[in-house]
């Protein structure tokens, strides 16, 4: 049981699945903070009953903002050494997160980034893979970071990393901003192969390719 780690889970209208995600995760990671980003359903209640600490945004701000709020909240726990950004919809695996935190404990890294493309298990559709590969190229050009998966929400960070990183992109461009912040602060990072579970549920609600246009606009214009 990782008592020195907080799971940071942005939560927006995932009342149907978040309960299972939390009750499953808490046995390995008892300290879970769900940032309820103005959900319209019963997400907050479900999360609390399942055993998470829920922090409520007064209005919907976006996933990036929710992550930054969760990280800032968890840093206030003096016992917290490690932090994992974790999705509320069941796409991320607790095993993967556990391994990533263990690497932070034993190896000289500040950040461990999950990657779908290091291992052999890739479940995304062809178009989505192509878009993600393009994002990798863009990332390499703009920040010089050599990353194989630029939009993976599963990340483990140590206290130093969270202290230095400031996510200002409220909405979906936070993925790229995370990498820029890592590069800017010269944090030591490594990738870990992880398995993203694309269920029918997550596939239906997932990030559409159209959203990539919005993310690019956010990055270029603010």
């Amino acid at each position, binding site marked *: *049981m990782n*008592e020195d780690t*907080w799971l940071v889970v942005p939560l927006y209208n995932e009342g149907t699945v978040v309960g299972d995600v939390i009750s499953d995760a*808490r*046995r390995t990671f*008892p*300290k*879970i*903070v769900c*940032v309820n980003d103005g959900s319209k359903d019963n997400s907050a209640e479900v999360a609390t009953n399942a*055993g*998470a*600490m*829920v*922090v*409520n*945004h*007064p*209005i919907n*701000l976006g996933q990036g*903002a929710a992550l*930054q*709020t969760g990280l*800032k*909240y*968890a*840093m*206030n*726990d*003096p*016992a*917290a050494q490690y932090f994992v950004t974790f999705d509320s919809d069941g796409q991320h695996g607790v095993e993967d997160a556990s391994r990533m935190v263990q690497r932070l404990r034993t190896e000289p890294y500040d950040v461990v980034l999950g990657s779908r493309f290091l291992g052999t298990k890739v479940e995304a559709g062809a178009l989505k893979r192509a878009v993600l590969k393009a994002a990798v190229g863009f990332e390499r050009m703009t920040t010089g970071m050599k990353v194989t998966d630029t939009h993976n929400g599963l990340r483990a960070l140590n206290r130093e990393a969270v202290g230095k990183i400031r996510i*200002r992109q*409220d909405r979906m461009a936070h993925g790229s901003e995370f990498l820029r912040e890592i590069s800017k602060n010269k944090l030591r990072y490594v990738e870990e192969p992880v398995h993203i579970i694309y269920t029918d549920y997550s596939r239906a609600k997932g990030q559409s390719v159209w959203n990539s246009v919005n993310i690019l606009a956010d990055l270029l*214009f*603010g």
Partner: protein
Amino acid sequence: MTAQNVFQIILIIVFAMLAFVVIFPRSGTRGTAIRRLVSVLLLLAGIVLVVFPDWLTAIANLLGIGRGTDLLLYALAVVFVGHLIASKQNQVERNRKFTELAREIAISEATPAGEAGSRLVAEVKQLGPAPAPNPAPDTER
């Protein structure tokens, strides 16, 4: 280089400086003061050109532009686009402040993390061993 060319270059430089000031507003005392001065100058220029419309045509010809109204149009386009960009930057800055405010409220309303963390750990310890996973569904038909 003729005197006209020199004049053209000077005016283009002035235009560029104007565009720069409009597009990249600096916050703080100096930025605000500069912007105010530029606004007043533009206003005065506008008044002068209304009283002496021929001057606009003269300046336009110096720059190699046909009509005074064309010059006015170009200047208007520069100021407009600059304003759009400055306005957008302002909006982005405001949104950031707003988010920080909402974040402070959210965190201050929640149980402090140290306390909440201890409670959660205690709760999980009390759960006891994990229930046995459901047996795999019978796949034989």
